[in-house]
C-alpha cells in the first residue's frame, strides 16, 4: 500500500504569479489541492484611515495607488461620488476627456492582464507585445497629465489638464492600430491548442455562485449574467454610446479570457464614438466652491472598472474631510471565491485560476 502524506505549501508572498505581495497557503494531496487559505494585508496602507484626515482633493492621489493598473477609473469613482453629493455639473468637454481616459485605461489594464496571464501560463512573447502596445497609451497619459501610472488627473468638477494640441488626433490614430493588433493577438493566442488545453473548463462556476460571492466584471459576466454598470446604471456619458456587453456561457477561465478580449474591442468602439462627438472647445472645470465640503449625508457611488464594480461609500458630516470613506474594491471581493475554486484542482491550475480572476494586490489590500 502507498501512503500519501499531506503537504503544506506556501505560495508567496513573493511569487511571480501574484503580481504583487499576496500569499496562499495550500494543502496538497499529491498534486491535488485539498485546502487553500489566502493571506493578505502585506500591502495594506490604511487608505481609508488616512482619508479621514485629508481633504477630498488630497485623497485623489491615494486612489491612484489602490488599483495602480487602472488609476483613472479609481480617480473617477471618488470625484463622481463627491460631485453627486454636491450636485456639481461637469462641463461636457471635461466629461468627454474623463470618459476617453477611462476607456483607454480599460484597454491598457486588459492588456496588462492579457500579457501577464499568458506569461503565468508559460507563453513569453505575448507579454512583450502587450506591453509594447500598452506603452502607447501610457505615453498618451504621460502627455496629458505628466505621469505614467499614478495620474492624479481628475478633480471634483472636472479634470486638471485640458488635452494638449494634437492629443485627440493621437488617440484617433491609435484606435485602428490597436484593432489590427487585437486581430494579431487572436491569431497568436486565442486558438492555440496548448493554451486551450490549459484554460478550457478550468475554474468554472455558475451564475448563482458568482452572484452569491458578489463577483463583478468579467468574473460575473462569464457565467452569462448581464450586468455591466456602464449599461445598467449609466454614469458619465455611457448612455450616449453604442456598445455591447460580451457574456460567457460556461463560466470558466476561457470565457473570462474571451470576454476581456471582446471588451477591448468594445472599448475601442466607445472611443471611436467619443472622439467623433468630442467638443472642440469648452471648459475643463465646472463651478466648484473653493473648499470642497459636501453636505451632511451619505453616498454610495459605483462604476465599472476593468475589474468590476468599484464603489465609494462616503459619509460626510459637512466637513472638508470625509467622516468615513470606504472603497468597495472589486479585486478584494472577486478574490473571495478563490479558495472554493481551488479545492480539487491541481497545483498548476492554481496559477491559471488566480490569473483568470485578474487581481491587483494594491486594490485587494487598499
Amino acid at each position, binding site marked *: 500500500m502507498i501512503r500519501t502524506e499531506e503537504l503544506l505549501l506556501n505560495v508567496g508572498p513573493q511569487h511571480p504569479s501574484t503580481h504583487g505581495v499576496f500569499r496562499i497557503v495550500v494543502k496538497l494531496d499529491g498534486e491535488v489541492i485539498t485546502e487553500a487559505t489566502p493571506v493578505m*494585508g502585506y500591502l495594506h496602507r490604511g487608505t481609508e484611515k488616512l482619508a479621514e484626515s485629508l481633504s477630498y482633493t488630497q485623497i485623489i492621489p491615494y486612489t491612484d495607488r489602490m488599483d495602480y493598473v487602472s488609476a483613472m477609473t479609481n480617480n473617477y469613482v471618488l470625484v463622481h461620488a463627491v460631485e*453627486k453629493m454636491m450636485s456639481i455639473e461637469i462641463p461636457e468637454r471635461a466629461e468627454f476627456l474623463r470618459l476617453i481616459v477611462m476607456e483607454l485605461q480599460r484597454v491598457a489594464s486588459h492588456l496588462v492582464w492579457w500579457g501577464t496571464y499568458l506569461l503565468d501560463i508559460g507563453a513569453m512573447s505575448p507579454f512583450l507585445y502587450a506591453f509594447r502596445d500598452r506603452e502607447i497609451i501610457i505615453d498618451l497619459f504621460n502627455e496629458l497629465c505628466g505621469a505614467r501610472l499614478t495620474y492624479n488627473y481628475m478633480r471634483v468638477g472636472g479634470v486638471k489638464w485640458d488635452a494638449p494640441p494634437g492629443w485627440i488626433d493621437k488617440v484617433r490614430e491609435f484606435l485602428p492600430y490597436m484593432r489590427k493588433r487585437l486581430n494579431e493577438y487572436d491569431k497568436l493566442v486565442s486558438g492555440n491548442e496548448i493554451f486551450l488545453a490549459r484554460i478550457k473548463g478550468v475554474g468554472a462556476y455558475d451564475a448563482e455562485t458568482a*452572484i452569491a460571492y*458578489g463577483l463583478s466584471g468579467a468574473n460575473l459576466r462569464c457565467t452569462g449574467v448581464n450586468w455591466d454598470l456602464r449599461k445598467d446604471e449609466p454614469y458619465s456619458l455611457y448612455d450616449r454610446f453604442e456598445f455591447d456587453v460580451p457574456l460567457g456561457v460556461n463560466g470558466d477561465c476561457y470565457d473570462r479570457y474571451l470576454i476581456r478580449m471582446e471588451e477591448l474591442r468594445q472599448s475601442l468602439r466607445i472611443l471611436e464614438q467619443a472622439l467623433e462627438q468630442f467638443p472642440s472647445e469648452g471648459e475643463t472645470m465646472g463651478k466648484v466652491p*473653493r473648499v470642497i465640503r459636501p453636505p451632511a449625508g451619505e453616498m454610495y*457611488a*459605483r462604476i465599472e472598472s476593468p475589474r468590476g*464594480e468599484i464603489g465609494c*461609500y462616503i459619509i460626510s458630516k459637512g466637513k472638508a474631510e470625509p467622516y468615513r470613506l470606504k472603497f468597495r474594491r472589486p479585486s478584494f471581493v472577486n478574490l473571495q471565491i478563490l479558495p472554493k475554486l481551488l479545492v480539487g484542482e491541481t497545483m498548476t491550475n492554481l496559477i491559471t485560476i488566480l490569473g483568470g480572476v485578474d487581481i491587483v494586490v494594491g486594490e485587494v*489590500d487598499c
Partner: protein
Amino acid sequence: MSEEQKDKETKLERTNNVSEPQSEESVKPDTEVPTDTAAEAETGSSPTANAPASTGADKPMRAPLTEEEKAARVQAAAEARAARAKAAAEGGEGSAEAPADKPARTRDKAEGDAAGEEKPERPARAPRAKANEEPPKPKEPSPKQPLLDRLVAMLKADVAEDAVEDAVINYENDHLPTVTIKNEHWLSCAHQLRGHLEWSCEYLRNLSGVDQETHLEVVYHMINLSTKAEVAVHVKVDREAPTVASVTPIWPTADWNEREAYDLLGIQFTGHPDLRRIMMPDDWVGHPLRKDYESLDSEV
C-alpha cells in the same frame, strides 16, 4: 474713434465688473473662508454639537408659522434627514425640532453661497425662505417611496413590529431606500431581504463598518440584479459590546468584508465561520479605524 473708445470703456467696465468679485475673493485671507463657513456650520449643519442651542435660538423666529405649515415642514424634513437628525438628537433634547431645522438651513446656505452679497442678510431672510420652500417638498415624493413603504410593511409583518427603527429615502444617492434595522432582528430581516419573492436581493454589493462615536454601525448595500430594486440597511452596534449577526451564511460575499470590519473596527460578527484579522498582522492590538484609536507603539 468714439465708438472704439466706447467699446474700450464698456470693456473696461465689464472687466471691472468681472474682476471685482474675484479680487474680493482673492484678497480675502485663506483663513477667513473656513471660519466663515464654520460659523454657518455651527448654527446650521452640525446638529451633533449644537442641537439644543440652535433650537433655542430659533423658537422666536418660527412663532409666526401656522400649525399646518409647521406640520408640513416637520414631515418634509423628517423624510429627508430623519436618519441623521436622529443620530444627532440621541443625546435627548430637541429630538422633534432637530429634523425640522436642518434641511431648511442647508438650503439657505446653498442660496447664500450662490448670491455672495446677500450673506449678511441671511438671518433675517431665513424664516421666510423656509416657509416658502418647505411645503412643495412633500408634493414630490420620491418614486421609490412606495417601495420603501412596502419594504417596511413587509419587515414589520414578517419579522417583528419593532424591527425597523427608521426608514428614509436618500435623495442624493439616486433615491436609495435606506432602513435602519434593530440589531437583534437583523438576521431574520436579512433572511427576508434575501428570500422574500418581491425583494430577493441576491447581490450584496458593499458592506462597510462605521464608527459613529456614540455607537458603531454596519451598512449593507444590496440589490436585486433583475428588478434592480436596491436597499441600504444600517444596523447599529453597541460600542462597548459590539456584536451583530453575521450574514456570511446568506451572502458568502460578506465573509471577507466582515473580517475586514472586525479587523479595523472590532465588530464581532456572531456566526461567522472564520472571524480573524485580514488586513492587520495577527498580533496587532486595537482596531485602527475606530475614531479613538491610538496605536500601541507610538513610533509606528
